[in-house]
């Protein structure tokens, strides 16, 4: 099992170096694969020029499925059949090997240069024959999904993620989040522009720089339409909040530069408001900036530190970190007047809260016995459990489907990104090739 994983990752890596896609991360599975469901993603066939496709779509899909922690795709050298369409799949062969689902596909280059990508997903255990009135009929009920689309060659990789999303949804009933992106801060103190705000595909590929500075960058946050990032920059010597359009050239908009700290931006679910922390009135308080009117309204009022506001999925409340009780704990406040309610009691430090899209689970950083770990808390019962064993964890960010958490941690003396499934069963690291990476934030659905 372990060996097959390593081999397929090597294959994956070598495929990409051949196609010269800039890769910023490795992906190293560090635990929790045993519970994953066995599937097989067969290499997609190619009809086109001799150079072949720019991306190994099947390898991208395989890697995505593995990265979810829910699936264990078979290593390519172990595959039992080399076919590219539903009709040729020998279901019994795969059933013998315990494979639950098979993915086949083909890519055809059309004269205008675009690629026609087609795929099918087959449920190995669902019967495709039935007897009606004493006669045996063959149906295609075991074909769970099929899909065909024309794409530009440069978009092939992202479309492979979209296919992985479809497979994931068909097999789990939950929307996939592979065709998403992450923003993060890369730090390399050996160069002048030591801090870079980056955006990459969720698997770390196609990284591009959004902004760079010789000074610190903190707390990137996505707008709900995934077009903008809010972030904190020290480019003017102290913390100020900016919003930048990722895909348009031009300067970032400075939205908060008051006396004191300006930090921790968080877009409201409707994208019209930005919660943030300002200490302009003496100590850090949560404010909400109406992005249409430019008006700030103060949400908290306490001499303790209030910061790290995060919106509940319904946009009616915020959770935030406050040390009004002595040590940092998470509180929740309805925006229409209630007093804040304390949510956390386990450990003497709980911070960086966020909620899964269904609102049932809160994710946070917990400190117990001096160790900082990612933790989840059942919103209804208040039961908390830590789900990581890594060191100095910070900045947890949920995938838009709530299934995975990306966070920053220290591994072998370097700050790296890691992922953990929200149920804590699957864990992986994404060490960068150079420098350090931190403050990861997962994009909304794209």
């Amino acid at each position: 099992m372990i060996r097959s994983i390593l081999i397929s990752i090597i294959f994956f890596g070598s495929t990409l170096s051949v196609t010269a896609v800039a890769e910023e991360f490795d992906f190293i599975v560090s635990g929790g694969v045993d519970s994953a469901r066995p599937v097989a993603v067969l290499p997609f066939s190619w009809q086109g020029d001799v150079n072949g496709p720019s991306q190994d779509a099947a390898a991208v899909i395989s890697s995505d499925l593995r990265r979810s922690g829910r699936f264990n795709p078979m290593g390519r050298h172990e595959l039992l059949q080399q076919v590219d369409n539903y009709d040729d799949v020998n279901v019994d062969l795969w059933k013998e090997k315990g494979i639950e689902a098979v993915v086949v596909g083909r890519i055809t280059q059309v004269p205008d240069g675009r690629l026609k990508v087609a795929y099918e997903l087959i449920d190995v255990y669902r019967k495709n024959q039935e007897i009606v009135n004493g006669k045996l009929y063959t149906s295609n009920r075991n074909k769970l999904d099929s899909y065909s689309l024309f794409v530009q060659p440069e978009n092939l990789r992202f479309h492979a993620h979209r296919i992985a999303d479809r497979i994931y949804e068909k097999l789990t009933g939950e929307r996939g989040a592979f065709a998403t992106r992450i923003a993060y801060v890369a730090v390399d103190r050996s160069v002048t522009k030591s801090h870079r705000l980056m955006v990459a595909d969720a698997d770390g590929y196609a990284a591009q720089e959004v902004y760079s500075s010789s000074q610190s960058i903190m707390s990137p946050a996505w707008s709900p339409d995934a077009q903008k990032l809010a972030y904190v920059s020290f480019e003017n010597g102290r913390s100020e909040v900016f919003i930048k359009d990722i895909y348009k050239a031009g300067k970032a908009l400075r939205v908060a530069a008051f006396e004191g700290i300006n930090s921790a931006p968080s877009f409201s679910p409707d994208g019209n408001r930005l919660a943030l922390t300002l200490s302009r009135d003496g100590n850090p308080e949560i404010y909400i900036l109406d992005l249409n009117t430019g008006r700030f309204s103060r949400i908290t009022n306490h001499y303790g530190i209030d910061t790290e506001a995060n919106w509940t999925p319904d946009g009616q409340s915020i959770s935030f970190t406050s040390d009004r009780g002595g040590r940092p704990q998470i509180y929740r406040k309805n925006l229409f007047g209630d007093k804040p309610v304390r949510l956390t009691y386990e450990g003497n430090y709980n911070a960086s809260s966020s909620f899964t899209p269904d609102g049932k689970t809160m994710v946070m950083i917990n400190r117990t016995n001096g160790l900082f770990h990612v933790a989840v808390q059942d919103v209804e019962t208040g039961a908390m459990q830590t789900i990581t064993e890594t060191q100095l964890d910070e900045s947890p960010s949920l995938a838009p489907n709530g299934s995975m958490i990306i966070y920053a941690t220290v591994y072998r003396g370097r700050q790296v990104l890691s992922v953990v499934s929200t149920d804590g069963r699957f864990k992986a690291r994404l060490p960068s090739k150079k420098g350090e990476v931190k403050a990861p934030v997962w994009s909304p659905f794209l």
Partner: protein
Amino acid sequence: MSIVKFGKSVVIVASATLLFACAGSNTDDEQQVVETVKPAVVPTPPTKTPEELAAEANAAAREAAGTTVYFELDEDVVSSKGRAVLEAHAWFLSQAENSGIVVTVDGHCDERGTPAYNLALGERRSKAVAQILMSYGVSSSQIKTVSHGEQEPVAMGHDEASWSQNRRAVLDYTE
């Protein structure tokens, strides 16, 4: 008293312009020279004023104390050692001739905990230092505070040896 002998004492303590006045005066009229020069010279015998001596002592004390005070984990309380550092700087800043000098207090945290909370904690540390400086007589208009949170460690390790150096507030006179 000869003019030559008197002239020597003038050379030691008086300014160049005073010397010029002496050189240009008539040596035949000794009494007149003594009378005009004497009021300017008599108060000068000590080589350094108490103020100058105090300033020098303070400069040495500031040099020895450095510009950094350190904090315990989670805390913004300045230790007695830190207070001594701040007292030395406060004396300097509160002198009338230094009233135009502005010091920036940069607050920092170690890497543990969340970056946004640490940014707030760093501000609390820089403000704790500002409060102490003011309690020692520094004008609030001479103090600026900036928090850097955990963003600018001086020691890059991931252990207490580095963390204890990074939990700090630094006085910065470069404007």
